[in-house]
């Protein structure tokens, strides 16, 4: 893994010099135990069609395609555009990061399976190097977590965390 990280950092350095990064060849490693898999996304909610249309398009997996519509049942914005997404294993013994954008991301610590289904999680919602909120919550596959974050331009940034089914 040290080699992998070094290759990664070297790739970053190469990019800064305008070169195409070399392909990363992960070494065979023993993967740490995981408790679940989550999908995290940052969504821009706005009433401004032009602002929404200007967002780069993200291909959302079919199983999460209903999320914008579900957001519309909670919030009163007209448009919900997924800006970034991250599918991530939740490690049993290590912290997991869900980073759909560079600006807003989530730290996830597994607290084990929840009684009645789902996962007990400790979550920290970060904006750059400032933690906005810490919470202990149960995340169930059928009940995603929506976090209404800071306002941006004419709308608001929403963070979505979904527990993937079948894990």
């Amino acid at each position, binding site marked *: *893994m*040290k080699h*992998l*990280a070094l*290759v*990664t*950092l070297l*790739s*970053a350095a190469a990019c800064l010099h305008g070169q195409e*990064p070399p*392909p*990363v060849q992960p070494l065979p*490693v023993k*993967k*740490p135990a995981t408790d679940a898999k989550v999908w995290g996304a*940052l969504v821009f909610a706005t009433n401004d069609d032009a602002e929404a249309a200007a967002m*780069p398009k*993200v291909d959302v997996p079919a199983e999460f395609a209903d999320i914008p519509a*579900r*957001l519309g*049942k*909670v919030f009163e914005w007209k448009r919900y555009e997924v*800006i*970034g997404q*991250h*599918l*991530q294993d939740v490690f049993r013994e*290590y*912290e*997991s*990061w869900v*980073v*759909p*954008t*560079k*600006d807003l*991301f989530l730290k996830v610590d597994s607290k084990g399976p929840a009684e009645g289904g789902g996962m007990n999680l400790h979550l920290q919602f*970060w*904006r750059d*190097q*400032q*933690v*906005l*909120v*810490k*919470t*202990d*919550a*149960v995340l169930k596959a059928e*009940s*995603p*977590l*929506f*976090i*209404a*974050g*800071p*306002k*941006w331009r004419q709308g608001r*940034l929403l963070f979505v965390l979904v527990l993937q089914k079948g894990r």
Partner: protein
Amino acid sequence: MNTPPEDYELLRWLDGEMNDAEQDAFEARLAADPSLQAEAALMKRLSSDLRSHLPAEMPVPYADFFNSQIQVRLAQDENVQPSPAVSGGWFGWLRLPWLTTAFATAALVLAGLVAWQNSTTAGGDELVHSIYVPKAGVQARSFHSKDARATVLVLDGLEDMPADRKIVGFNISHGEVDEALAATTLFDDHGRAVAVMSKDARNQPLLLTTTNPRG
């Protein structure tokens, strides 16, 4: 149990609270009283041992939150009659000023943790057990939306993201943790490393991207 007067004098002497006249009188009594000398030596040794085993300063977790709790307690104390300065028996050494401060801090930390654990959420949403917002002026509330079948956590009072900030998303398919380096490398669909999440010296997240997402 109240502290006997001689113990109180001893504590004041140890704490350096006496004026010159009081100190001369006490030290004269001390020189003439072997049992008082033994007690003074014991107290000094206890104090020294405690000082050597406890750090002079301890970082307070969630400092913003505890500062607010301390302010609340100070405001409450202004409305409370002062209690007798001395408390009990040979445990009077607990009254040493630095130790009192340490215990008061610990009590506030404990009270803060209890308050944090008990902070319930609006709407009685059983899926959110606790919420802690470190920044003053930010309010958090949670509820369950039956229509959306979702748990909702709303943060009000956050500083707006600057309108000219270009927010560009990642498309991360998985992340791998590096146990030795305590870092997580994030990969896209094509297996390319997009970013590395690590921690800085202050234990704050440090995100290194392989490309500049803002273009």
